[in-house]
């Protein structure tokens, strides 16, 4: 049985003057431990799809199943990481990373120590009494990762979490996230518009077309790249080949769209 299953999900946005279909008939299944990237031009509804999976947005049609259980609202086993860190500026780093446990009223000494050891893994334990404004963008996004992992989600949803960072920080963070997820055997869905990032990080890449967002095609990343860390994968000979293939498909989507 698939870990995560999306069954013909569709979403329509309504305003006073129009009804805009954003997603149409999306069916997708993700295996446990798999890293899937949703890739597509802006406006293809990939962030909408992520919101639907997270349970924050009810799809207009279709269903999402996590381990066979229907998702109807925010689920404790699903973690969500946003484009920017969105750390609460009025809370210290410690309060920020513990907020998930606090909201769930699960803040025990044991769990607190587990979160602290996660924080140590990211090398930011010394910042725990500081405020987010005292940290750099890359550090803040690392803290946001710890905050998301603190409640031990089985499925991690990443909504372009590296897009607001400079290139160097982004590459380092890709490695950190990839290593952390592999180590803890998490399943992840990443939304991105960066082809390189998708290839370097994922096992499967799903291309979405625009107007409305539909499943266009799926790529399996070869094992030669999957074994490597994102940074190493970018150096591998197979990387540009896959990049080229995906590039052509994306061109195709653009052409279809303009017709």
């Amino acid at each position, binding site marked *: 049985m698939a870990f995560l299953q999306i069954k013909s999900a569709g979403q329509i946005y309504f305003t006073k003057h129009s009804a805009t279909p954003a997603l149409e008939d999306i069916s997708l299944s993700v295996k446990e431990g798999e890293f899937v990237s949703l890739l597509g031009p802006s406006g293809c509804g990939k962030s909408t799809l992520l919101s639907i999976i997270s349970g924050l947005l009810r799809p207009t049609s279709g269903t999402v199943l996590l381990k066979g259980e229907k998702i109807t609202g925010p689920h*404790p086993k699903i973690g*969500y990481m946003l484009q920017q860190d969105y750390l609460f*500026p*009025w809370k210290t780093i410690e309060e920020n990373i513990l907020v998930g446990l606090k909201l769930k009223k699960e803040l025990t000494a044991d769990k607190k120590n587990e979160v602290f050891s996660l924080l140590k893994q990211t090398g930011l334990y010394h910042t725990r009494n500081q405020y987010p404004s005292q940290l750099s963008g890359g550090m803040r996004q690392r803290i946001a990762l710890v905050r998301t992992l603190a409640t031990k989600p089985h499925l991690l949803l990443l909504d372009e979490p590296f897009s607001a960072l400079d290139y160097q920080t982004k590459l380092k963070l890709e490695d950190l996230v990839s290593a952390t997820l592999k180590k803890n055997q998490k399943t992840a869905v990443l939304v991105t518009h960066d082809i390189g990032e998708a290839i370097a990080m994922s096992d499967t890449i799903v291309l979405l077309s625009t107007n409305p967002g539909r499943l266009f095609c799926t790529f399996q990343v070869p094992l030669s790249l999957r074994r490597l860390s994102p940074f190493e994968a970018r150096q591998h000979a197979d990387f540009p080949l896959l990049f080229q293939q995906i590039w052509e498909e994306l061109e195709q989507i653009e052409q279809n769209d303009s017709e």
Partner: protein
Amino acid sequence: MNKTTVNSAHARYLKKAKKENWIVRLMQFAIFIGFFAFWEISSRTEMIDPLLFSSPSRIFSLFITKMADGSLLVNTGITLFETILGFILGTLFGTVLAALFWWSPLFSKVMDPYLVILNAMPKVALGPILIVALGPNMGSIIAMGILISVIITTIVVYTAFRNVDPNYLKVIQSFGGTKKQCFFEVILPACFPTIVSSLKVNVGLSWVGVIVGEFLVSKQGLGYMIIYGFQVFNFTLVLLSLVMIAFLATIMYQLVEQIEKKLIRSR
């Protein structure tokens, strides 16, 4: 650049800043002394009518007498109490109303036109109604102090509530947080600076409400002293009350500003 040049440049910069600060203080002091000296002299030489405009020395001697018989302290205390209660309750009620609006968008939509009317309405015009409804006592004066600040606080704070980045709420919701948790974990702390700064505005508004209230009720307080002085043509009394109000309002504003600084710095 080596360290000594940097240091000496910094020293020059500090010296210049200090000098400017000095000049500003000196000028402020000169205006203060000049104003009272001019007032005193023109009153004594009868350039202005001493019966109407009194003089600083007369006001001061009245201050001593009224302090001695205790009546000034009592009246000032009453006005101060009413004002503090007025602006704290005004800010509190305004925030609570804003919270209700945030909680129920439907309620806020329904109430929107009434809020506009109430905001446009000069609140002091409701004074007579208040006195009839609540009686000519301290209650209606405090109510006036609250009324004058509550609507504008509601509008300002509710706008701040709505302008909180929805992504912060998304974080809370993704952890399964409830609406109540959204409010207390995100909305309220995010808008805390706005609430404190509306406290600052409300200090001034509350003084207006309370003084007008005391005009109407005419029993006690600094507002009463003004209206009484006016009726018996004792303008020294009127001006003494004005000086007291100016003094206290400034102190109160400064206090709230200090509190604001402290609260904002701690984040």
